[in-house]
């Protein structure tokens, strides 16, 4: 028998697991034999990101535990077994499956359960809750046979659940008892703004509604009847009416619990029995239950310290929250309801852009007490730091919530934060800890994340971490490193200039003269792109092939299962029926999944690498060219139908779009480039969301630049007006050439322009007024690209030697047996892991 103490942990949820993971790294770990009971069929997973299950994350991906964690750390895990009873006198725990263990120290981490109001009918079929992976599976199953879904509860979780119902394709309602949404976090005006935004998304919100019974429906499975006499029919009911601590096991052994539930703990997280601790959502501290992970993690750290004999205490936690609910930014800090005596309130409301902000400050206007942000939560990080660290507010606190005027900056610089400021609340990382890591030589973002764990939880602190890092680095005399990577001590722009001025034609030549090592996946594609922009040689020639991003090396986009998609160019989105049929025939012959893209063309998915040349041969014979969907290059020039057909059209938008697409196709650039041309100001082609957008007017073409959709949408800026076609094209030539020369790698035109000193005006002065005297060069540069265009696919299929690479195995004609498809809605798609187990054969064409 070992003389180790027995430590038993009941519950392997987020907090229980955080406790175990923290403990095994401590030297006191060796003093214990560790046993844990996990009621769920799988060890801890990321409940915070549970909803990601609906966007395709698998249970494995959500797992917080590596496969061999328990084995590696010699922890006995009783999976799928609920601890049923604690005998405090004999210090034993008995499980539902009859396992009986002794303990010296016991940790309760049993979490909470969703509260289901006891209305009659609450236990009918498809009346569900939202807490575990099994709950989500039940929801997905219920949704298959349902049309309408109702979420009972309009709080944080309820709205998250509503989003899930929308994504499952149901007509979605939210029924809230309180007069507004997120009543705990938001004030009335904030709740109203949130409601408007959520209704814009098609969710029907009912507030002030008290459900009295759920019975049989007429059109749907259920009918919900409300106290005010109204009714609502639905097929699925999802209860999200709050959580209740799981304290049953504590009650069973007479531990102290709160009047409304929760296992009472003191500052060291001990329950009324000093050998038993409680942490996470089951614990009641100072009359409070904390329904967030960060406080639970803080409790777990307290217990670890206490076990090690260190003084540690849990002193409460900040409940400020920031989330993106159904694409709406919402944040709440501290005393959002201005309950502090003497509190003063500032509000900013912008009905047009649906933004609401409220600041609660102390009577003397010096300190922030609380805040509410709806529609724009970009100020959250700054405000939270003012609040948490009692930093004195600027003279006019309202500047913090008013829209920024271009000449003033109100952000709280990282410098202003004290060393004790908590930067990452998930892992309790302070500014001090980050500075220490930097001093110890950790000078990259990735390195800091790995070293301190900051920004590796919810990710909400990433921006702040970055600004702390940059400001510390420059304070310590580091020039913030702008080198492209470890192989070249230059920026992309430097490299461009070197290549241009020294007439460098290959990567090896550049590496020999100006770099070191062998290169990597950062510098190789960047240099490959520069060489292509400048000299425009065939990208698969032997000296360039190894530089290309994977997609470029096979001139197609790799999909998740290792197959590829094929996108032929359809300039301007115009296509004749015959060409459309030709694509259809190829798709049919090779059994490709076919989809219309957001760029007005057709994407064919599921081609194996060995099929690519065959497919392209047929497409080229039918008159198609590569669409460069794989390249950092011109993608599409979208068009509207324009004056040819449209009764409002002012000019021929399709004609211009085709001309522009053909002009710039094949141009390799720092990032992808998208264009659009609209035939009138109704703007059906969405030109103002593109890198280059053109709109026809009575007096000529208006040119917009530097817009994009994507992760951070930005409207394009008006660059020049009333242009004739020749001037328009010249202006675009120069604009693009200058972008290609001077932007950073993977920098869209918007970010490039925003980072440029002088911004749009400077850009105009270079491109329109030729301030730098560069225009002639820029013209030439573009002319060279246009003159040397080749369809890369055409060149490739004409070259036997190149085709050799288009095989999965160089020594066998067998295809990859991991590639397995199943049919859905009449087309093929990659099999998921579960399905893969059942099929091993590839269907051959």
């Amino acid at each position: 028998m070992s003389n180790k103490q027995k430590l038993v942990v009941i519950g392997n949820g987020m907090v229980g697991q955080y406790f175990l993971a923290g403990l095994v790294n401590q030297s006191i770990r060796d003093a214990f034999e560790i046993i844990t009971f996990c009621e769920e069929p799988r060890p801890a997973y990321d409940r915070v990101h549970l909803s990601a299950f609906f966007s395709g994350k698998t249970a494995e991906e959500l797992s917080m535990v590596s496969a061999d964690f328990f084995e590696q750390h010699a922890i006995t895990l009783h999976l799928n077994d609920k601890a049923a009873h604690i005998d405090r006198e004999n210090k034993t725990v008995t499980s539902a499956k009859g396992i009986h263990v002794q303990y010296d120290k016991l940790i309760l981490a049993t979490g909470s359960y969703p509260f289901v109001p006891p209305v009659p009918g609450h236990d009918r079929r498809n009346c569900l809750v939202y807490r575990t992976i099994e709950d989500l599976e039940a929801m997905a199953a219920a949704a298959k046979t349902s049309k309408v879904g109702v979420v009972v509860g309009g709080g944080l979780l309820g709205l998250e659940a509503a989003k899930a119902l929308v994504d499952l394709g149901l007509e979605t309602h939210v029924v809230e008892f309180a007069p507004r949404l997120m009543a705990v976090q938001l004030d009335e005006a904030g709740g109203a703004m949130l409601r408007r935004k959520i209704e814009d998304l098609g969710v029907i919100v009912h507030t002030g509604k008290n459900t009295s019974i759920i019975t049989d429906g007429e059109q749907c499975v259920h009918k919900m009847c409300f106290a005010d006499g109204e009714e609502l029919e639905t097929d699925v009911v999802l209860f999200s009416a709050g959580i209740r601590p799981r304290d049953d096991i504590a009650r069973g052994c007479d531990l102290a619990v709160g009047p409304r539930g929760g296992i009472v703990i003191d500052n060291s997280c001990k329950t009324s029995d000093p050998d038993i601790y409680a942490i996470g959502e089951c614990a009641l501290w100072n009359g409070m239950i904390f329904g967030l992970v960060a406080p639970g993690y803080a409790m777990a750290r307290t217990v670890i310290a206490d076990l090690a004999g260190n003084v540690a205490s849990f002193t409460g936690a900040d409940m400020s929250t920031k989330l993106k609910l159904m694409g709406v930014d919402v944040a709440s800090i501290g005393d959002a309801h201005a309950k502090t005596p003497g509190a003063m309130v500032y509000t900013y409301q912008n009905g047009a852009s649906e933004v609401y902000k409220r600041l609660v400050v102390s009577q003397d206007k010096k300190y922030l007490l609380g805040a509410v942000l709806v529609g724009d939560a970009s100020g959250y990080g700054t405000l939270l730091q003012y609040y948490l660290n009692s930093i004195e507010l600027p003279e006019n606190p309202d500047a913090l919530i008013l829209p920024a005027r271009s000449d003033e900056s109100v952000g709280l610089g990282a410098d202003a934060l004290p060393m004790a400021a908590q930067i990452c609340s998930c892992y309790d990382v302070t500014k001090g800890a980050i500075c220490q890591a930097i001093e110890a030589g950790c000078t990259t973002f990735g390195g800091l994340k790995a070293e301190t764990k900051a920004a590796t939880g919810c990710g909400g602190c990433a921006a702040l971490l970055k600004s702390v890092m940059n400001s510390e680095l420059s304070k310590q005399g580091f020039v913030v490193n702008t080198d492209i990577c470890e192989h070249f001590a230059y920026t992309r722009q430097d490299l461009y200039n070197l290549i241009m001025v020294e007439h460098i034609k290959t990567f090896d030549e550049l590496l020999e003269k100006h770099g070191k090592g062998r290169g990597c996946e950062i510098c190789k594609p960047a240099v490959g792109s520069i060489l292509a922009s400048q000299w425009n040689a065939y990208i698969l020639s032997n000296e360039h092939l190894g530089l290309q991003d994977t997609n470029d090396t096979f001139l197609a986009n790799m999909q998740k299962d290792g197959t590829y998609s094929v996108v032929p160019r359809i300039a301007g989105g115009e296509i004749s029926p015959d060409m459309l049929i030709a694509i259809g025939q190829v798709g049919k012959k090779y059994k490709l999944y076919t989809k219309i893209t957001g760029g007005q063309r057709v994407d064919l998915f599921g081609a194996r690498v060995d099929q690519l040349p065959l497919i392209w041969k047929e497409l080229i014979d039918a008159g198609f060219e590569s669409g460069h969907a794989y390249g950092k290059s011109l993608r599409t020039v979208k068009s509207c139908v324009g004056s040819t057909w449209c009764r409002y059209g002012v000019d021929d938008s399709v004609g211009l779009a085709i001309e522009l697409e053909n002009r710039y196709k094949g141009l390799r650039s720092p990032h992808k480039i998208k264009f659009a041309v609209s035939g009138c100001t109704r703007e059906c082609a969405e030109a103002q969301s593109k890198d280059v957008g053109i709109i026809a007017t009575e007096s000529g073409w208006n040119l917009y630049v530097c817009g994009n959709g994507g992760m951070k949408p930005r409207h394009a800026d008006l660059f020049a007006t009333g242009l004739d076609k020749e001037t328009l094209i010249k202006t675009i030539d120069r604009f693009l050439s200058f972008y290609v020369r001077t932007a950073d790698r993977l920098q869209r035109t918007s970010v490039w322009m925003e980072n440029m000193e002088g911004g749009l005006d400077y850009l105009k002065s270079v491109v329109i007024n030729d301030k730098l005297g560069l225009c002639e060069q820029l013209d030439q540069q573009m002319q060279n690209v246009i003159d040397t265009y080749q369809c890369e696919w055409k060149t490739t299929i004409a070259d036997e030697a190149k085709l050799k690479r288009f095989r999965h195995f160089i020594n066998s004609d067998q295809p990859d047996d991991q590639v397995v498809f199943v049919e859905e809605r009449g087309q093929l798609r990659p099999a998921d892991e579960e399905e893969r187990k059942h099929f091993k054969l590839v269907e051959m064409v």
Partner: protein
Amino acid sequence: MTQWQKVCSVDDLQPNSGICVLIADQQVAIFYMPKEGAIYAINNYDPFGKANVLSRGLCGDINGQPVVASPLYKQHFNLQSGVCLEDETVSVRVYPIRIDNGSVQVSLVELVS
């Protein structure tokens, strides 16, 4: 004793890039850097992306270690040890490989063991 088996010829290799061979039912990715005279063999299966794609990743070096970056989610694998740079608990299998008289050979003994 190491038992070498020929899988292809040097001409089949793609300089500074990868190819894949099938040997004893295993997919082996081979990377060839003629300038350094280096050749590496690792399993083709990407444990993160869960697809047979590593041979199509970009290769190079990081802190002096030869690496390939997965084409799917860009994790780096050390070509000599197979260890993932981003998560050292994950690695892919490496195989002994050599070039003998223009023929590329992989050791089978290692494969079976």
